[in-house]
């Protein structure tokens, strides 16, 4: 996986699950996609601007004022399901690791409504986000 690349791991209709190394590799062409990223979930504004349909990132240890997951709330305000994996379960900066190894440590309300909860694998959480789009 390299900077600038997007890996498609699943497709359902016009929607996909996409893995990226960093959230800055996402763009407006991802407006039907679920994004699994190696980045922290600190900002959210960039992903919200790209109008993605779901996002899973790293909680970065949550940190000061829960800054590592502050983006979850912002995405929730846009009705976008989002979750973060624990920084001890996946290597930050590595989107494949988020997807393959990550365990969910935090979810926003929109994600919780889809049945995504703490302790779930990132893979299962991404699947739930994708399935919700097919409904």
């Amino acid at each position, binding site marked *: 996986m390299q900077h600038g690349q997007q890996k498609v791991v699943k497709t359902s209709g016009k929607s996909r699950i996409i893995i990226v190394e960093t959230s800055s590799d996402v763009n407006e062409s991802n407006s039907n996609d679920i994004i699994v990223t190696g980045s922290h979930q600190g900002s959210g504004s960039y992903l919200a601007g790209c109008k993605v349909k779901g996002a899973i990132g790293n909680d*970065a*240890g949550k940190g000061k004022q829960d800054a590592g997951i*502050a983006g979850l709330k912002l995405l929730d305000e846009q009705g976008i399901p989002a979750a973060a994996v624990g920084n001890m379960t*996946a290597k930050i900066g590595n989107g494949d690791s988020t997807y393959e190894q990550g365990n969910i440590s935090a979810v926003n309300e929109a994600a919780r409504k889809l049945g995504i909860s703490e302790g779930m694998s990132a893979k299962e959480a991404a699947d739930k986000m994708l399935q919700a789009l097919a409904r």
Partner: protein
Amino acid sequence: MVKEVHKVVKESGGYRIIIANSATSIDDNNKKDVVVDGSHFGLNVGQYALQAKIRGMIGNDAGIGLEEAGIAGLKLLGQHGVPGAAVSCMSAKIGNGTATYEEGVISVANETAKILGITKGMSAKEAADKMFEAALKQK
């Protein structure tokens, strides 16, 4: 993606200390810069820093995490003789370069940074100054 505009907090003889929210926003134009950013210091960030050939970097340790992935880039920079340090995720808000610079407290420094006198517990500002002074001496 709209290119992030960096904040310059110090400048001398073409060398600068700049603040960026995201490490992905740095490029060839930052060759003479010490970069203080809001990103984690993962392996990919170390790679971006090497490609841009910057003079030093301070980022967020992201709680260090699995296999110390949050500071893996720091080690990579050290292997190439570039000073790097990370601030504790409990001292500064990740994703916010200004918080790293204004509030960050160093939790880890690579060998090159240690040689410059940068140590755990130092403010990010002081650490950035030391990297900046070293860059000026090297020119």
